């Protein structure tokens, strides 16, 4: 998975988002051990201190936890990951709706278009 960092927002908050995404999508499965800060920083081509800061934030939320000597792990709590998934989905949908409204669509139109396109995709 590629690290996609834009240049106009704080790096550490973007790393948090992408780590959440990776955990939710199973790139880092439930209960698995995360690579070291140094390896992650190198992979994302960011400063190790920035990576450290992002991981500490994720620890605060409980999505990952650290064992003093053996490293950092993804939570084993399924409901926690479900909650995170829903939150991310909500954010995406809100953003999408805002854009559609800016384009001048009404809510009903948006929903019916969504149904149509989703049907086409199923085929």
């Amino acid at each position, binding site marked *: 998975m590629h690290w996609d960092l834009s240049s106009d927002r704080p790096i550490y908050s973007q790393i948090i988002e992408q780590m959440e995404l990776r955990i939710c999508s199973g790139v880092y499965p439930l209960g698995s051990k995360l690579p070291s800060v140094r390896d992650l920083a190198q992979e994302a081509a960011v400063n190790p*201190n*920035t990576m450290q800061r992002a991981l500490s934030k994720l620890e605060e939320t409980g999505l990952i936890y650290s064992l003093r000597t053996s490293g950092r792990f993804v939570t084993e709590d399924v409901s926690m990951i479900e909650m995170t998934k829903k939150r991310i989905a909500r954010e995406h949908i809100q953003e999408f709706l805002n854009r559609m409204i800016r384009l001048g669509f009404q809510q009903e139109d948006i929903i019916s278009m969504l149904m149509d396109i989703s049907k086409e995709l199923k085929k």
Partner: protein
Amino acid sequence: MSNLLECKNLTKTFGSTIALMNVNLEIGRGRIVGLLGPNASGKTTFIKLCNDLLTPTRGEILIGGHKPGITTKGMVSYLPERTYLNDWMRVSDIIEFFKDFYKNFNPEKAYDMLGKLGINPKDRLKTMSKGTKEKVQLILVMSREADLYLLDEPIGGVDPAARDYILETILSNYREDATVIISTHLISDIEKILDDVIFIKEGQVVLQKTVDEIREESGKSVDALFREVFRC
């Protein structure tokens, strides 16, 4: 914890030209710092003062508590803007040279990095392109286990792919007790790996902040802010 590098009222003039004016800086250990400024802003003067290649007109610099001199030369690994290596030498000769000069030089590390970049240690410098020469120099400098790395324009002459490799090299050599100061104006290429940013303008420090502070406060990349601060 004490700072690795401290400047107090550092001033350097060349006749009537002011290169640096009352620079006050404190830089801790374990940081990657970008020294950013347009041409002729005083970046190279600052780095040369840190290396005892110039002496301050007024004020002082302390590196690990010492004034630049013999002690600090053992602590500081310096990549100058222009090469000082002899053209006729082979890379392996220069490695021997560095081994003699610096106690903290690690030749295995150097050979390992040369191998990764596909540079033949038996090649002479004069047969190499400008970019390859720059890579060799950076490899030599990063192969020292120093406290402070001073890199003056390390990515100027190399292509974007090699630039990525160089940044990776800097990151993979990063140690918690060492600090790297990189002077450049190719900001967008390096801002992701920086902790702190120092903007220097006409010999004075106009801003010292972390990259994320800049992005949070201005909603702009360091590169965009630089273009704003230094608009011609």
